């Protein structure tokens, strides 16, 4: 029980990661794939942030000497990864818009059928 509750954050990370991964693999809708990818990345953000947390630690701002601080570096690192995630989402959605303009659909199955039809006229 202790290991389960003590590692609560990490259980959340694993569950979120698998949900995200499942959506990416199982869904045909390209927008849903991007959302799955987002959930998958969010899991990693929580993984990093959990690593920096110290029980009873405060924000790492210079104050009274001897105070316990949370480790700020993982937060800074993951801020970079969040920016990368936002850029990826934006690019992915932009591609979906273009795909919808070119094919008239954003279901992967439809797109593959359209491509195959083009191959065998």
């Amino acid at each position, binding site marked *: 029980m202790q290991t389960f509750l003590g590692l609560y954050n990490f259980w959340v990370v694993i569950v979120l990661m698998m949900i995200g991964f499942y959506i*990416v693999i199982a869904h045909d809708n390209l927008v849903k794939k991007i959302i799955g*990818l987002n959930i998958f*990345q969010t899991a*990693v953000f929580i993984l990093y942030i959990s690593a920096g947390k110290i029980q009873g630690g405060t924000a790492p701002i210079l104050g009274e000497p001897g105070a316990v601080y949370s480790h700020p570096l993982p937060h800074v690192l993951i801020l970079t990864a969040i920016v990368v995630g936002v*850029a990826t989402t934006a690019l*992915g959605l932009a591609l979906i818009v273009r795909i919808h303009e070119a*094919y008239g659909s954003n279901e992967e199955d439809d797109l593959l059928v359209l491509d195959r039809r083009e191959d065998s006229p």
Partner: protein
Amino acid sequence: MTAQLPALQILLPMLASALCVLLRSPAGAWLCFTLATWASFAVSVLLVLATRSGAILSYEMGGWEPPFGIELRIDALNAFVLLIVSGMAAVMAPFARSSVLAEIEQTRVYLFYALVLLCLTGLLGISITGDAFNLFVFLEISSLSSYAIIAMGPNRRALLAAFQYLIMGTVGGTFILIGIGLMYMLTGTLNMADLAERLPAMADSRTEKAALGFIVVGASIKLALFPLHAWLPNAYAYAPSLVSALLAATATKVAAYVLIRFIYTVFLPERAFDGLMLSELMMALAAIAMIAGSVVAIFQHNVKLLLAWSSIAQIGYIVLGAALVTTAGLAATTLHLLNHAVAKGCLFLALGVIVWKTGGARLSDLAGLGRTLPWVGAAFVIGALSLIGVPFTGGFITKWYLLVAVAEQELWLLAGAVVLSSLLSIIYMGRVIETLYFRAPSQGTTRSEPVPVLMLTSVWLLALLNVAIGSYSEPFAAIARTAAGQLLGGTP
């Protein structure tokens, strides 16, 4: 001046990329692209000269002392990969002029060059940095820009190919991020050299094994190692000609470098290969990739797809050498990074000229072109011979080194796979060459103007480079041996 070379290596293409956006005119952007790639090639040549004897250059980014600040760390392998990436970009710059004008919308040309330069910045950054998290950031810079430039391909399928690459690439990048995070939790450091020192104290920790697993899988996706190769064929086939050539010649090489760097420098081979059967697994996957990639290539009608599938087979050779964990194997891998880049770059560029001329890359578009475009056909044949591994071409040198390395370990089955894959490559390259020279030209419309001299210059520079390396490989082989020695010596 020389002290600042490592920083210049990344900054030159990065600043040139911004300059391209400001210049806006297609001609200006091309000039900016060309000058930037040539300058960064010159920098990488200087770096190779400085490190080829085994010296290690360390550069403190922003004056922050490593392991706290970001360190750029250059040894023989880094410098060699930098040379390949910047060299390929520099050689392809003259080709880009007409090819890009023909394939990209006039108003978007400057953005295209800006993105290609950003992609190069990312690839060079991955190769030069000594900091694990910094590597992830550069990886995403190169990935994001390559998704965008692949999507600029003329066919609408380029969009879907780019999207699929985006999904796979992001998963791969995130896996590497998880691996780096786990290592950071164990050791509290992100500097690769520092990680290598601290990780042994954590030996037998399950977290360390998980970190290694995540990084190997993540890098393998980027590398398109079988069975994680699904994104590669379409991405290369539907991208603009310049992008196909450039990514085929550099992106997978850099991913291979990431895999080698993490396994050999950060985790150290004796622990990385212990317990997870990683070596056996990589050998098996490499062998399957070599044969399956070649077999699928035989049945392709689109020559760009054919070359892309052949890339998957060639990645097998690269991984096989790295999985042997011997100096000879690593030297073969390092050399093959160069030789495959030169051979595949030459083939894709020659094909790019044909696409410029006929507008298509199907086998039927190539029919009879060997006679109407003799120079292009001849360059394609030289590239094909190098890919097959005929003596006096670069490909022969690496296959020779690889076979010797495999034979040293008495792994005869793998030696058989290497030979079989080469025989299969004779079949698929033979098909293309047969179409080039012995089929009647198709009735399709072709451009009437002659092939621009700049395009031919790029193609022939690469073709001659194939022959030059094949005839006189010693300087490169010496660097490869130094790099292999450094990797196995344990010090980064």
